[in-house]
């Protein structure tokens, strides 16, 4: 058996430990082959496991590989945010300039680091989201969907890597109370994924729920990609309250979590998604 490697299980998009989306982190993964990484990611049963490697490209601070229990991903938001935090935590990068360059299978990814109340908050630039021409099925265009009233925006399929149907509802309360028919969502074109959202009454926080039965996830607790698509959609529609460029999204409360994602649309229209990260488990792994 090889030497134990440093292991962390962090909670991403979490205002407190346990509220967000867990991520397994294996440091010093040079020497692990693809099969070993895939086998460990399957064994952890977490939505993603990341493996740290020395950078291969000039300018990169570090390199990661991202695995789900089933396959390697070229890029994903929540693992990238968690990995950036883990890189700072381990001293692999210092983030003193307020930026990191993370290398992953999709290429070089800029990461912004902001500091607030002693916390380090990474944010990653999300791939550009685009609305798709796919017409929405009739049931999704009806005035009421799953017994909830629709909001002003027409339902649309968006793509920023993964594809999600985005559906605005009439109120945050309707989002929280929604009881969706997962079989209908699973049959949606584009992979069977639907996100619903609405502003809270004060217009401060966007309440989001994400259902992905098409990929075996009834409801996801904290989804970087879908929130980035929603931000792009709201920006394009001019529906960001007060023309703001920054807001918070609340997700996962209905399934026992309470994640908070921070969204920012920069001057170029790029969407940045980030949040708090907590190291819940620290140890060493023998694999």
């Amino acid at each position, binding site marked *: 058996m090889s030497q134990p490697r440093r292991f962390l299980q962090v909670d991403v998009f979490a205002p407190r430990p*346990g509220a967000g989306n867990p991520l397994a982190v294996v440091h010093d993964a040079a020497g692990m082959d693809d099969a070993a990484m895939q086998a460990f990611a399957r064994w952890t049963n*977490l939505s993603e496991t990341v493996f740290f490697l020395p950078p291969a490209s000039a300018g990169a601070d570090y390199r990661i590989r991202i695995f789900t229990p089933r396959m390697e991903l070229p890029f994903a938001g929540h693992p990238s945010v968690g990995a950036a935090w883990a890189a700072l935590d381990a001293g692999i990068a210092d983030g003193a300039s307020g930026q990191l360059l993370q290398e992953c299978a999709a290429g070089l990814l800029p990461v912004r680091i902001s500091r607030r109340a002693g916390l380090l908050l990474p944010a990653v630039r999300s791939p550009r989201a685009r609305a798709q021409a796919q017409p929405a099925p009739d049931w999704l265009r009806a005035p009421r969907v799953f017994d909830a009233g629709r909001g002003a925006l027409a339902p649309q399929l968006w793509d920023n890597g993964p594809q999600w149907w985005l559906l605005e509802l009439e109120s945050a309360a309707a989002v929280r109370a929604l009881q969706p028919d997962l079989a209908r969502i699973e049959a949606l074109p584009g992979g069977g994924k639907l996100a619903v959202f609405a502003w809270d009454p004060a217009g401060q926080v966007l309440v989001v729920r994400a259902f992905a039965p098409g990929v075996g996830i009834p409801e996801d607790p904290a989804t970087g990609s879908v929130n980035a698509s929603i931000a792009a959609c709201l920006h394009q529609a001019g529906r960001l309250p007060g023309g703001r460029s920054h807001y918070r999204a609340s997700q996962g409360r209905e399934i026992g979590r309470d994640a908070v994602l921070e969204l920012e649309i920069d001057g170029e229209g790029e969407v940045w998604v980030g949040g708090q990260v907590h190291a*819940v488990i620290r140890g*060493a*792994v023998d694999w």
Partner: protein
Amino acid sequence: MALRPYVLVDVFADRPGAGNPLAVLPDARGLDDAAMQAIARWTRLPETTFVFPPTRPGASYAIRMFSPRREVPFAGHPSVGTAHVVLEAGLAQPQDGLLVQEGIAGLLPLRVDQAGDARTIAIRTPRAQLVETADAGGSRLLEALDWLPLGQLPPALMDGGRRWWLAEAVDEASLRAAQPDWEAISGLARATGSMGVLAYARCHGRDYQVAARAFVGGAAGMFEDAASGAANATLAAWLALRDALPGKGGRYRVSQGREVGHDARLDMHVDAEGEVWSGGQVVSVVRGQIDWP
């Protein structure tokens, strides 16, 4: 914030990744039910266990087991994995080769066998009763199993705390190649209040005498389990009932999980009193600490 020891182990495994994962908090003092459930939801593992000092005479330690959704009264793989962590942490010592686990299901003994570097831990499982066999069950059952070429013994429903349908395949190759009909398995599980189907074949593997696949199709979800201690215990009781135990002296080894990317081994033993012991080896994969508010 409190830092507590946290161990991830692989149960029914002779190497990391072969068995069924389990998270163990060997010192859970001070955690309430809500915190334990929240941790078990967050680990996302089939089970997370919490160890407390024993409260009953004769117990080595007390245990609570949680799946991501609820507390589990008894399950085999968490019991075996937790005993390994308790021994590694020096929290208890076996007396005459036995540890006694205190849980919701009462006091249950675990046998610890050390052979060189390999340590096998087996739990005595609750006595399983035959509920019905397919002879009486009729065509509904046979339709629900028509994806599996059936072997010699009739399908049987056993109750060992949780109920399992046990279905013998005609041989190992057809068991491993079988494509389960999930709809039929779920319907059968719901209609009979059972976990699902444990399909098996008596065989002559390299180091095992039974190959098994566990298809969970009831309220617990719909998946193939990597290594099922309690289900295999009901199978051992069934084979003993039919005088069909493979191996020698009531001992045999099971291969399970290969079809879902694992490669577990379970060591089953039906002793002279007819008690069924379900066990195997355990490998520590992650040793660390958890910081939970």
